């Protein structure tokens, strides 16, 4: 397969789409090796220990409302997601529930103001960096039913992530994930329902306990009330 440019990456932090202020990112999954070498082993012997998950992002400064400084100046917790190849339905994604470990505004006389490299450490009960796919990334003005993505049938838990980066100024949204055995039809009741209603910028992760799952999954955003105004959101899905 050919090389793929990284320039189209999408970086979402706590709901904020900060792609055009991000210069670089890195996702880190590490497993501590626990040595269990015993007498008679031909070489050192290790078994997997605890996993570590971290996402780092190098950011530019911006003081505009709903941008870098406003979103990141008070390190807290949230969800960070990256679509490394940009958005197309089913494109790969990385997500991580995080604790923001630092905030580093900096400047040099011959350079632009930067935030430096921020570290988002794994936070809460999770599995570290979640490698999934993108189900949605769009600006819409009303109810939007997504196209299904082939996840593959099986028994697994689901890690569902929603980022709202343009809140709707009128009306509310109900956002769910549905499954089906076929791509174009047969989608049943929601298997995951987000609580965010689209009226504020934010991010949310829903954990769906392990169960038998169907092959295709799609996202549906249903608008209630209000006029046709912009609503920007992304939905990412990973599984165990």
């Amino acid at each position, binding site marked *: 397969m050919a090389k793929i440019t*990284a*320039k*189209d*990456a*999408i*970086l979402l932090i706590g709901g904020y789409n900060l*792609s*055009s*202020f*991000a*210069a670089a990112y890195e996702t880190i999954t590490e497993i501590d090796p626990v040595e269990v070498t015993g007498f008679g082993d031909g070489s050192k012997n290790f078994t997997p220990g605890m996993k570590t998950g971290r996402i780092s992002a190098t950011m*530019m400064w911006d003081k505009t409302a709903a941008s870098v400084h406003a979103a990141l100046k008070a390190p807290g917790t949230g969800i960070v997601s990256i679509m490394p190849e*940009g958005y197309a339905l089913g494109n790969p994604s990385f997500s991580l529930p995080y604790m923001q470990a630092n905030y580093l505004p900096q400047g040099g006389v*011959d350079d*632009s103001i930067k935030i430096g490299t921020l570290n988002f450490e794994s936070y809460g009960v999770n599995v570290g960096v979640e490698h999934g796919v993108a189900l949605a990334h769009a600006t819409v003005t009303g109810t939007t039913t997504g196209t299904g993505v082939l996840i593959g049938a099986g028994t697994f838990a689901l890690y569902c992530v929603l980022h709202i980066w343009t809140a709707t100024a009128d009306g509310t949204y109900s956002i769910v994930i549905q499954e089906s055995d076929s791509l174009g039809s047969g989608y049943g009741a929601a298997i995951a329902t987000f609580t965010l209603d689209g009226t504020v910028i934010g991010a949310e992760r829903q954990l769906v306990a392990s169960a038998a799952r169907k092959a295709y999954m799609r996202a549906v955003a249903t608008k209630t009330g209000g006029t046709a105004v912009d609503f920007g959101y992304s939905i990412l899905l990973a599984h165990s």
Partner: protein
Amino acid sequence: MTFGTGVAAVANSIAGLTVAGVTMRDTDQIPPSGSMVCPIFCPQPNGFVSDLSVERTTFGINGTGRLDLRYTLNYVYLHAPVGGSVGAFDLYAGMMSKIALILNAIMNNDSVTGAEDIKPGGIGDMGVVIDPTGKEYWGTLVAIDVLEYVQP
């Protein structure tokens, strides 16, 4: 994001600098010759913009990302016609003084409309330069390095 409007804006800003005893000119004011207009500082018609480089600084394609745009604007300073004084080099010291004033004006006005930063990038051919008609003048070439932030 656009390129070109920055060049015009920077050239206009440079033409607006005040340098005692020197006429500062914009791209729409390049004289056909140096006759009767010296001392004059104007865009060099042959190679006004050079050394263009574009560096991608953030993610985003098709105009949604941010770029650092660097280029050099090349100017010519015509001080006085060669042979226009009694002694062959009588005008040389005066030329040096004016060049110093021009460089000081650029260094002390480094945040101009159209660019994040400008600074002298070099001087060359100090001594005899020629105007578009081929006539010789005491003068020099001045390069001005420009940095623009191209943003969505």
